């Protein structure tokens, strides 16, 4: 008769096990594991990046290459207690912020002498439409905006960055960011009406 083992082993979480195994195989440069890694990461990153690069969606692939490479290079430092998806999305967020920072910084330099926006003539978003149609119109309107306007709106309202944070990240004053946001909102409203 076999006596029961005095030590009870807890089964590790199978999803964590699978991820740990996948990462170790990718680091060993196994081509099949690398394909699985690329497939998973792309599914996570693609919608995140695409929705934040409107209107420059042609840049999605370049940025995704950068993110995947950065993730692969940082993989030896990945700790199993973290969730791979959140970790990869964190890298994507940093890369996107780098891009936003660069584009907004460049644009503001060129726009400093623009006239102030007349807030009194801004139309309002009074249309009531269903959610799917609204999303389509949002994408359409963002796509029609000059890129820095779209980016600053996405950064502020989709990623919830404050004007102060954006100012710190771009090296601009908070007032300059507020002015850029005001122009972006005004442009968005005008184009929304015509979309």
């Amino acid at each position, binding site marked *: 008769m076999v006596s029961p083992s005095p030590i009870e082993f807890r089964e590790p979480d199978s999803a964590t096990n699978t991820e740990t195994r996948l990462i170790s*195989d990718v680091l*060993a*440069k*196994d*081509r*099949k*594991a*690398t*394909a699985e*890694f*690329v*497939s998973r990461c*792309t*599914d996570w*990153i*693609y*919608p995140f990046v*695409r*929705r934040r690069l409107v209107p420059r969606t042609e840049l999605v*692939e370049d940025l*995704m*290459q950068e993110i*995947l*490479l950065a993730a*692969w290079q940082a993989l030896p430092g990945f700790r199993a207690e973290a969730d791979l998806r959140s970790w990869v999305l964190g890298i994507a967020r940093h890369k996107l912020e780098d891009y936003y920072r660069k584009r907004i910084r460049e644009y503001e330099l060129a726009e400093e002498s623009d006239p102030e926006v007349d807030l009194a003539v801004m139309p309002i*978003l009074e249309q009531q439409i269903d*959610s*799917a149609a*609204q*999303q389509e119109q*949002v994408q359409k309107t963002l796509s029609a905006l000059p890129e820095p306007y779209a980016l600053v*709106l*996405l950064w*502020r*309202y*989709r990623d*919830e960055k404050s004007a102060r944070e954006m100012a710190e990240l771009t090296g601009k004053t908070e007032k300059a960011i507020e002015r850029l946001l005001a122009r972006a*909102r005004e442009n*968005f409203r005008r184009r929304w009406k015509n979309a």
Partner: protein
Amino acid sequence: MPDMEREFRSLLAESGEAEPAPSSLKARLYSMLVHKQQKSGPLASLDASLAAGHGICVFEKLVQISPVGERAKSPFFCEVCHARVLAEHFDHPPIFWDHCPYVKFQES
């Protein structure tokens, strides 16, 4: 002012179904990453892939059973395969081999 903030936050909030990544994009990203991996040394051999429990495609199998050394089983054979070329350019290419990563990208 707070109403305007709320209005924009609600309009620009992330919603709706996420658009799936095109398989041709996955294919190009995969080829790019494997090329980068190769720059820092040979890939794991096909024997190692099999031992790790991964399947290999029919063309890789031919190489894997050949009486050649480990090193000859390490190159990225997809480099010369038409499945890769088709998959990198089309989202639904006519390729059907088992264990081909470029075929799997279409299924995911």
